[in-house]
């Protein structure tokens, strides 16, 4: 698998695997999501999270819709969207691997585990494998600080990792 920057990996519409949350951006559905959350106090983050979950990212086309509904400027929505690490502006791979890079995991050899994993996948941090299977993100602490090196593969926590164990877990989810 060769590296490809995630920015070039915009492949809306591709769905499958265990990630049901990949869908084509759909304005009607977008309006529904906004309507579901608009009654909350401070609804912007919950709305952006809901977009992230539904579509796998927050499409640029959603920004004016949200701005209109919340009576704020598009710049304000853009500002929030780009401030937080979690909100994606392009779709991710079908699976998401978050490897902890914080100090407690580092003390147990996480940097070596991460380097080996990235090298085997042929990607760098924030990138998606060319087949669109897996996006790898750094994460700064999963609260598994006495059980590291740790990672989160989709929703599955992984602890006491070594390069082989992580490769096995990735293969199990993504296929070889």
């Amino acid at each position, binding site marked *: 698998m060769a590296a490809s920057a995630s920015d070039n990996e915009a492949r809306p519409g591709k769905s499958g695997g265990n990630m049901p949350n990949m869908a084509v951006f759909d304005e009607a559905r977008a309006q529904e999501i906004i309507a579901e959350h608009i009654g909350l106090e401070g609804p912007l*983050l919950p709305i952006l999270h809901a977009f992230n979950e539904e579509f796998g990212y927050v499409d640029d086309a959603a920004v004016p819709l949200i701005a209109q509904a919340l009576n704020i400027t598009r710049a*304000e929505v853009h500002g929030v969207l780009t401030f937080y690490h979690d909100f994606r502006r392009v779709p991710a791979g079908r699976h998401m691997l978050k490897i902890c890079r914080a*100090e*407690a995991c580092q003390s147990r050899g996480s940097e070596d585990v991460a380097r080996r994993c990235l090298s085997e996948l042929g990607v760098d941090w924030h990138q998606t494998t060319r087949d669109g299977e897996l996006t790898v993100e750094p994460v700064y602490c999963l609260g598994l*600080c006495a059980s590291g090196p740790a990672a*989160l593969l989709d929703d599955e926590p992984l602890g006491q990792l070594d390069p082989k164990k992580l490769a096995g877990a990735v293969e199990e989810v993504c296929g070889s």
Partner: protein
Amino acid sequence: MTRIFIPKDVAALAIGADKVAKKIAEIAAARRLDVTVVRTGSRGMFFLEPLVEVETAAGRIGYGPVAPADVPALFDADFLNGGAHSLRIGRPEDHPYLARQTRLTFARCGITDPLSLVDYAELGGWRGLKRAIEMGPPAIVNEVTQSGLRGRGGAGFPTGIKWKTVADTQADRKYVVCNADEGDSGTFADRMVMEGDPFMLIEGMTIAAIAVGATKGFVYCRSEYPHAIRTFNEALRLARCGGWLGPDVAGSKHSFDIELRVGAGAYVCGEETALLDSLEGKRGIVRAKPPLPAHKGLFQRPTVVNNVLSFAAVPFILAEGGKAYADFGMGRSRGTMPIQIAGNVRYGGLFETAFGLTLGEIVNDIGGGTLSGRPVRAVQCGGPLGAYFPPSLFDTPFDYEAFTARDGLIGHGGVVVFDDTVDMAQMARFAMEFCAIESCGKCTPCRIGAVRGKEVIERIMLGTNVDANITLLEDLCQTMKFGSLCALGGFVPYPVMSALRHYPEDFRPRAAAVAAE
């Protein structure tokens, strides 16, 4: 019927607790044994996870760490009746790791089903809230003040004073906000509360709401904790159904409800004013103080913002009295602190104890030294913005003031152990890099200082003008420490300067260091 207890804490799941539970259920079914598996929080002894406990005539007997492959042998050894096996640890509460602790906040964690209202009430739950409702707001605030409880998130501000400020401020609406944005590496106590004893947090927040006259609460939990989010949301639903939240809390005239909000991966949102902005739907940018959140907090209303552990300490304080809590501890650090022993350590886990143990006792006696078996070289206390302590400072007592006197902080109680393979220049560089990634960008010392700091350390690591660059780095740290708006830029000099001070050899040119050996 035999009850078997297996944690579903994410730290147990990460090393196979679900597979163990499945295997136990399969074999029990095949052998036609009448067992029920109860999923609990974690006891916090992560070196024994997955820890399987069996209810026997002699009490609960633990076995751990159990791998799925061990399960048939456990059945063969009659573990359902506490049979002998090499993984048998006896009664968990007699295990030295637990026996040495004083568990006030974590009294139930790992013992009960976290989502059982029956278990919670049976093991002392809601007693604090019931007493709070009887005694009324001013007396609640007095009780918390008398307990000496200080903010467990890191700043150590007296909780009673904060509550009194909010109680005394008039407003049409007040809020209680729980900071569950536990971003510090080496900490997991908030997560364990939310996964292992969520009703305790709900009870603590509700007591706070009654004390200050708030009607709405928010828990701001980081998105990196999906399991805690699921468990806590379910706990909220159950608490509402049970009448513990809603228009008449526990049958009283008080109205209070809690909503869980999920962060979005920004470390700086652990800073309380950035957290409030984030809750409001803005970028998580630090606010200048004053006004204090107690006067103008969420949506400009008076707001109590406390850490999970601060709220979690409150039910005990109300149930047993402020004095009972204050009887633990030393100096101005009263009560207990859930210390989180993490990193390259043999016996990692949660260790709740009264303030006052020395760092050496925590790392060597309790933690058992490094997991790798190599000598301990550095211990970082208080998260990524905390100082590195060398073994020569292991006599420092775990206490807010004692750590401050040694240019460190206990923060949220995380203790991360490193062995002698650690490169402290690399750790200093990482501290700056992390600050650069996570800076909210509002103030210049943090936004630009962190980037420049990383560059300067990289030049030092390459051996370029080392003395001049070390002077520059020290100067930059002074600027960041005193010129930053919040603790992110203001505290990142702690790890950097402590690394420089205690491990100067790591900042000398590598070629020279190799030649000198």
